[in-house]
């Protein structure tokens, strides 16, 4: 597919995703803060719904086309210590700002210009890592790309099935508690 058309379609999907994110008020930074304050039912409910639909959809996609299916994501460094470390730094950053990536993009769209400052502040952090830290860290990278079924030695439908079922049960428990 022509890159221009691909970007055009990607932009249209982005508009749709952004619309639903805004209307749902989805932000994982707020959700994590709610969990730490003992009020995490809302974000758990939303995450369960996202997980169930997306996990089943991605699994089925593999049967529709061999190009699709489950793939390792965000593994420039492979799976290991750097994922945990980057997660810790990122987690601290989003809680300090009160907005994850989704939340930041959403808040910019809602007219909160503080998040535009945050958006452009990604630049020094990214430049520091890419131009200064990367050359130092490269020797220590583990570039093994893994998905969970490969790690456990269990077929993907079983892993997705068990996790999705767990999420459904979790969601049902949260909804029952809410109603009760």
């Amino acid at each position: 597919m022509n890159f221009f058309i691909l970007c055009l379609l990607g932009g249209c999907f982005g508009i749709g995703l952004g619309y639903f994110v805004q209307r749902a008020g989805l932000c994982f930074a707020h959700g994590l803060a709610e969990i730490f304050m003992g009020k995490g039912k809302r974000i758990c409910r939303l995450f369960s719904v996202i997980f169930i639909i997306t996990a089943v959809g991605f699994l089925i996609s593999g049967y529709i086309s061999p190009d699709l299916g489950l793939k390792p994501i965000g593994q420039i460094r492979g799976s290991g210590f750097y994922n945990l470390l980057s997660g810790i730094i990122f987690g601290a950053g989003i809680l300090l700002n009160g907005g994850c990536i989704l939340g930041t993009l959403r808040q910019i769209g809602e007219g909160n210009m503080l998040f535009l400052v945050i958006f452009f502040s990604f630049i020094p952090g990214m430049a520091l890592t890419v131009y200064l830290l990367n050359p130092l860290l490269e020797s220590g990278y583990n570039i093994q790309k893994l998905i969970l079924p490969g790690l456990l030695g269990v077929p993907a439908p079983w892993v997705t099935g068990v996790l999705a079922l767990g999420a459904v049960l979790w969601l049902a428990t949260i909804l029952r508690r809410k109603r009760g």
Partner: protein
Amino acid sequence: MDIRKISKKPVVLVGCFAVLNVVMYLTIHRFWIGGSSFLPLIGITGPGNKFLFAFIVNLGVIAGAFLGAFTSGEFRLRWPKRINIPKAILGGTLIGIGITLAPGTCTTAFVTGMPMLSVSSFLSGAGIFIGAYIMFTIIWRRI
């Protein structure tokens, strides 16, 4: 059953969001990523302009959020207070380091990576939880 009322429920809206995420993967064979998508801001567009594509999707997310806020009357232009800017720059820089050290933002980890059963996303998710908890306890103590 009031469809207008149901369509405003966050659970239904995130359901639509998740379906759209899967449809995007099925139709254009690309998934939505968060962290690396911002690398074009420092001139890195990735192999086959992969990051540039993701950046455009994220610009679309801003436009979509604007559309949602504008049509619902929630759009309000708010300028930052000077006192909040240093904190925003510090937080933004931390996010910038985190997303490039080993890509794993909330979007990548929670929305795409975990449903893809990607091991790195589970690790990133655990890291995000730990980092956010550390920052939460620091902020909470100060308050």
